[in-house]
C-alpha cells in the first residue's frame, strides 16, 4: 500500500514540476506580449504629444478653419481616455482602443489635407519638421502593432495547445486578441507634400 502511495506521489510531483515548466513558459511569453503592448502605447502616446504641438502650430496660422481643429482636439481627448491594462487585454478593450485611435487618425488626416491650402504653413520649417515627426510616428505605430501581433502569436499558440490549455486555465492565461487593421488607417497617414 505504501508503495502505491509513493508512486502516486511521484506522479503528482512529476506533473506539478512539469506544469511548473509550462507555467514559466507562459509567464515569459506573456511578458513579451506586455512589452510589445508597451511599445504600441508609447508610439500612440508620442502621436498624442505631437498632435498637441501640431494644433498649436496650426492655430497660429491666421483664420484657420476651426472645425477641423476642434475635431482633432476632440478625437485626441477621446483617444487618451481609453487605457488598457497590458496584462489583461480583452478583445472588447482592444476593439475600443482601435476605434478611438482610428477616429483620431481620420481627424488628423482631414486636418492635414486642409493644411494643403495654406502656403505659409507649408513653407514653415517648424511645421515641416512636425510633419516629419508625425509621419515617423505613424510608421512607428504601424511597426509596433505588427510586432505586437507577432508577439501574441507564439503566446496564443502555446496557451491553446493541449495540455497547456488546462494549466493556462488554472492561472488565467487567456488567449489574447490580435490587432485588426484600424478602420481607414491601414496605410499610415500620408503627410508627404511635394518638395
Amino acid at each position: 500500500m505504501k508503495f502505491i502511495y509513493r508512486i502516486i506521489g511521484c506522479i503528482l510531483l512529476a506533473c506539478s514540476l512539469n506544469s511548473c515548466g509550462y507555467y514559466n513558459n507562459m509567464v515569459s511569453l506573456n511578458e513579451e506580449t506586455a512589452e510589445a503592448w508597451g511599445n504600441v502605447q508609447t508610439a500612440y502616446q508620442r502621436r498624442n504629444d505631437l498632435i498637441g504641438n501640431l494644433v498649436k502650430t496650426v492655430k497660429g496660422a491666421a483664420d484657420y478653419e476651426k472645425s477641423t481643429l476642434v475635431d482633432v482636439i476632440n478625437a485626441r481627448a477621446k483617444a487618451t481616455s481609453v487605457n488598457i491594462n497590458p496584462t489583461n487585454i480583452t478583445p472588447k478593450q482592444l476593439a475600443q482602443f482601435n476605434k478611438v485611435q482610428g477616429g483620431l487618425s481620420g481627424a488628423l488626416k482631414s486636418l492635414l489635407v486642409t493644411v494643403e491650402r495654406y502656403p505659409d504653413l507649408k513653407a514653415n520649417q517648424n511645421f515641416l519638421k512636425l510633419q516629419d515627426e508625425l509621419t515617423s510616428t505613424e510608421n512607428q505605430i504601424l511597426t509596433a502593432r505588427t510586432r505586437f501581433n507577432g508577439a501574441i502569436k507564439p503566446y496564443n499558440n502555446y496557451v491553446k495547445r493541449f495540455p497547456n490549455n488546462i494549466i493556462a486555465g488554472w492561472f488565467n492565461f487567456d488567449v489574447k486578441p490580435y490587432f485588426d487593421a484600424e478602420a481607414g488607417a491601414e496605410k499610415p497617414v500620408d503627410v508627404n507634400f511635394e518638395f
Partner: protein
Amino acid sequence: MNSILKNTLVGCLFLLGIISNYAQFTIPPKPAKTTEQKAVYDYADILNSEERQVLNSKLIRYADTTSTQIVLVSIPDLKGEDIGVLTPRWAHKWGVGDAQKDNGVFILLSKNNRKIWISPGYELEQYITAGQAGTIVRNVIIPEFKAGRYYQGLNKGITVIMQMLNGTFKGNLNNNISNENNEFPIFFVFILIVFFLIIWSKKRNNNNSDHNNGKNKKSPSLLDIIILSNMGRGGYSGGSFGRGSSSNGGFSGGFGGGGFSGGGAGGSW
C-alpha cells in the same frame, strides 16, 4: 491528362509568383558572409565604382571608430511599397548596428520613385529625430539630387548625419549647406574648430577612462581624418585619404543585429 493538369498547375503557380513579386518589394536576404556586409549597396546603379568605394570606405571607417553602422542602399523601384515603411523594415531585417546599442542608420533611395528615406536605430532617434532627418533630406540632399548629383547629395547628407551623431553639428541647416560653394572660407574655419574640438574631447576622454581598449586608442584621429577628408570638398576628390584596405570590404564583424522602431523621415525630388 495528368501531365496537362500538372503543367497548368505549375503555370498557375508561376503566374502567381510573378503577380506577388510584382505587387510587393522583396527585401533581399541579408548577405551571408560578414565580409559581404558592407555599407553601400547600389542596386539601382546610380554611383560609379569609384564613388561607391569612397562612400563605402568612409562609412566603414566611421563604423570602426564609433561602432555606428550607416548603410546606404539604392533600389530601382519601390514596386508600390511605402518607402517610410520599407526602410526601417529592411534595416531591422538585416540588423544594422549593434544589438545592444541599436546604433544603425539606414538610408534607402528609390531611383524611379525619386524618393529617399533615412531611418535611425532605436538609440539614435534622439540624435537624428525625424524632423532633423527630414531637414537633411530637404535642405542638403535634395538640392543636389535635383541637379542630378547623386554622389554629392549622399556624401553631404552622410557627413551631416555623422556630425549630428557626434554632437558636433553646429551649422544652420537652413542656410549654410545648401549654398556651400559661396561660403567656403567660413566652412574651412568651421572645420578647424571642429577638428580642435574633437582632439580636445578625445584627449579628455583618454585621460578619464581606460576602458576604451584597443579599438579607440589605435586610431584616435581617424574620425578627424574622415571629417577633414570629406567636408567642404564635395567633389570627387573627397576620399583621397581613404583608399585603404577597407575600401571594398564590409563592416568588421558584419551587421550586429540592431533594432529599428519604424521611425524615420525623407522626401522626394
